[in-house]
């Protein structure tokens, strides 16, 4: 519980509001995440996480990656995804650009998994610019069906 006024917390909420304002002006930022540095911007690439009773699924929105650069690793409950968004060929003169919105560069993102997974059975599939990581749950983490006895 906050018992005193924390000026830095106020700055943080101001920062968030500014980010939301910028997102309204430039929706591309919101859709594809931000590569730039900053306290609240560790959100590239964007991820969706889902689960069923056997697996956790992590979908990563990352078009144009260099396929050799993709690294997926699991340590305890941390999933780490690293890679490089391939740059355009470098011999283009800067003044030849009409639009330059896509960006490129290396990234790392870690995610805390909600359950224990079998680290050696994790699979990753990169297709159409979306990386799908399938993480099988450990037996202890799977839901148990309890039979209800009716007398």
């Amino acid at each position, binding site marked *: 519980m906050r018992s005193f006024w924390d000026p830095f917390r106020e700055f943080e909420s101001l920062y968030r509001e500014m980010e939301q304002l910028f997102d309204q002006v430039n*929706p*591309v930022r919101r*859709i*594809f*995440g931000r590569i730039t540095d900053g306290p609240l911007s560790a*959100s590239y690439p*964007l*991820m*969706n*996480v*889902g*689960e*069923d009773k056997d697996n*956790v*699924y992590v*979908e990563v*929105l*990352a*078009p*144009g*990656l260099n*396929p050799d650069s993709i690294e997926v690793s699991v340590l305890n409950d941390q999933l780490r995804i690293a890679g490089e968004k391939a740059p*355009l060929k470098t011999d*283009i003169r800067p003044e*030849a*650009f*009409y*639009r*330059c*919105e*896509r*960006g490129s560069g290396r990234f790392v993102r870690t*995610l805390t998994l*909600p359950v224990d997974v079998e680290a050696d059975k994790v699979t990753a599939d*990169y*297709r*159409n*610019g*979306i990386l799908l990581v399938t993480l099988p749950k450990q037996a202890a983490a799977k839901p148990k069906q309890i039979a209800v006895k009716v007398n």
Partner: protein
Amino acid sequence: MKNSTLPTKQENNAVATRENTRTLTPPVDIFDAGDALVVVADLPGVDQEHIDINIEKNVLTLKAEPSTRVSEPRLLNEFVLYPFYRQFQLGEMVDQDKVRAELRYGVLTVYLPKVAEKQPKKIEVKVG
């Protein structure tokens, strides 16, 4: 009965714009490669057969339908894929019959060759 009481401007020469559905604007790089304009667009989750590239009246229209579906239920939900839509006004310089495109790892590259007479001519400077 008309839905709107405001007069709508009718342009005979106008190209159809987006339908009244939610769409995403893909980020693009566009650059001049000398003999062609190159448009590079991020279209994640889209299969090759669901991309529609159309040039009409010097307007380039990119439409793409993502086919990837995310498993439910969601524990973390940071993105939603809607159809992609974006239009660009082109100059007279593009040779519309020779446009070609390729899709790789969710990135679409469209090559728009310039018509021959608009390509830059190299002029030799003679030093006498």
